[in-house]
């Protein structure tokens, strides 16, 4: 079959404009497919992460935006004493935008001594020492730093909050790369006196032996008659609930992914059908020379697959490169979904391109293989 590779490549090059347009169309469709896929994977990572199942988020009851949840900070001490609770981290969240946004900036104020233990962060530049010693210090996730062009030593202001960037970090959880961490008391003060003594949420680590649901119920029961009621959910559920509107949109967007696949299929199939119809006589000549119908079928299939794969690889490559360099994320109410490139996304895109190439070539290949030699040779 490889002996006929020059014929296949030259046949594609014969109508190079048509071939390039088809490849470009496939590339654009797979590019969109990659983006949609990365958003869906980002959401899945956020809500299905095993670690997220053993971490509870205590939020003020009937509140949804971080700005409106105000829990007394001393709730942390009470929660820490409950059975099954390993650790409690009080967190103050401040975001520039509570609505869904592609450029959401989320500040998380945490006690500095707890930050490194509670988060798996690797500093790419800067130092933890400076973070610990400076009150207005902030370590910035690499995605935000990339998006906003932030570097260590810069000062950075969003709304009423101005911080000194003392470190850029990479997290093992891609969504965390979109956060900025500061000292808890700094963020409480920066937001005005009324925030001192209150936090947005408590992050509770449940011990291995405890049932997270039972611990969550115990926490809510503890504060049912307190000054502020609580709503406690696992981190995964909390994030899913917070992003429920976005999740619906993202769920709908997967149809866009399927539409892209359909688009490539139609595009490549149309081009291949046209190529076969242009060459009915040529296929008859090849059969006269002794090419089996099966070989003619495979030659047509090879053309179809090459176009689909070429477009697919271009689109996937461009999509993954942009995802890698763009640091994109969508967020709402202080929770973000990171759009990250991944190997499985690249593999699934390549497999889809291959399958689409095969499907698009089946009917034209069959048509070419069934060419009646004598009838076709009579064509002008």
């Amino acid at each position: 079959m490889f002996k006929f590779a020059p014929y296949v490549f030259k046949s594609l090059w014969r109508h190079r404009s048509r071939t390039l347009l088809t490849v470009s169309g496939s590339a654009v469709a797979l590019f969109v497919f990659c983006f949609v896929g990365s958003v869906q994977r980002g959401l899945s990572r956020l809500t299905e992460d095993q670690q997220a199942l053993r971490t509870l988020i205590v939020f003020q009851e009937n509140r949804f935006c971080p700005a409106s949840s105000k829990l007394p900070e001393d709730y942390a001490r009470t929660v820490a004493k409950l059975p099954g609770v390993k650790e409690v981290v009080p967190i103050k969240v401040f975001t520039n935008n509570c609505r869904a946004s592609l450029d959401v900036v989320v500040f998380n104020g945490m006690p500095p001594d707890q930050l490194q233990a509670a988060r798996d962060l690797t500093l790419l530049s800067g130092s933890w020492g400076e973070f610990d010693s400076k009150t207005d210090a902030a370590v910035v996730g690499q995605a935000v730093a990339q998006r906003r062009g932030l570097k260590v030593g810069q000062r950075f202001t969003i709304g009423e909050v101005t911080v000194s960037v003392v470190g850029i970090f990479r997290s093992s959880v891609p969504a965390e790369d979109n956060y900025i961490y500061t000292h808890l008391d700094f963020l409480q003060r920066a937001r005005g006196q009324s925030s001192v003594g209150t936090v947005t949420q408590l992050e509770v680590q449940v011990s291995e032996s405890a049932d997270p649901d039972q611990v969550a119920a115990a926490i809510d029961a503890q504060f049912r008659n307190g000054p502020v009621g609580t709503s406690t959910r696992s981190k995964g559920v909390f994030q899913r609930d917070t992003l429920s509107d976005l999740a619906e949109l993202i769920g709908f967007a997967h149809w866009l992914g399927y539409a892209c696949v359909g688009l490539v299929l139609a595009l490549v199939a149309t081009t291949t059908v046209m190529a076969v119809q242009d060459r009915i006589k040529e296929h008859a000549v090849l059969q006269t020379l002794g090419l089996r119908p099966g070989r003619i079928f495979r030659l047509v299939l090879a053309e179809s697959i090459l176009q689909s794969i070429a477009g697919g690889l271009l689109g996937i490559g461009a999509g993954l490169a942009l995802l890698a360099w763009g640091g994109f994320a969508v967020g709402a109410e202080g929770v973000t979904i990171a759009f990250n490139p991944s190997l499985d996304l690249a593999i699934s895109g390549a497999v889809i391109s291959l399958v689409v190439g095969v499907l698009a070539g089946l009917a034209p290949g069959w048509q070419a293989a069934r060419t009646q030699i004598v009838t076709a040779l009579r064509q002008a």
Partner: protein
Amino acid sequence: MALVEIRRLTKQFRKGDEVITPLQEVNLDIERGDFVSLMGASGSGKSTLLNAIAGIDRPTSGEIVINGSDITKLSRGALADWRAANIGYIFQMHNLIPVLSAYENIELPLLLLPMSAAERQKRVEIALDAVNLRDRANHYPRQLSGGQEQRVGIARAIVANPTIIVGDEPTGDLDSETTEQILDLVQRLNSELGMTLLLVTHDPRVAALAPRQLRLEKGKLIEKGREVALVGGDFQERSA
């Protein structure tokens, strides 16, 4: 045993309500090294007979035994393999693959045979020499004249050293000067290389070159100098 043995070959097809029979119980023997021309009026069935012998058209009934194989009994795929090994086809319109160079066009039939790349190269170069086109090996069909294209077509037909070479009006699309060159080449294939040739033609000058001249009339095959007709399933020859 003749190289080609055709027995009671009939070809019918339907055109609307009418059944047309271009070939009716035709018999023909072609010996190895024969040079046979086949003439006949338009629609007389000469191309149909040629295509049946070349294995690109199926007869309605009868036998075509070539080199010991009854090709009417071969499957579509097996028939393709058989053509690759046994048939060299010279088309009227050259029918070169436009995206391939002269060299690549000539090499095409060899890609189907078990052969090393070095052997393929050697054979293509011999074929190019035979048609005197070595200097045009890397030219594409659009860069060749009509006569040169037909010579490439002939080189492609002979390169695999087939059992029989068939030509359907091989000079039908050429001017008279180029026709002379092609006919000279075809004659040399037979006289110098001993190739078995069957040419379909309208042109009496082309037909006259062949030692054996056949004519198809009303589905029957007549050979100049003798009539070949089927009676009761046996060959009978009659002086013309």
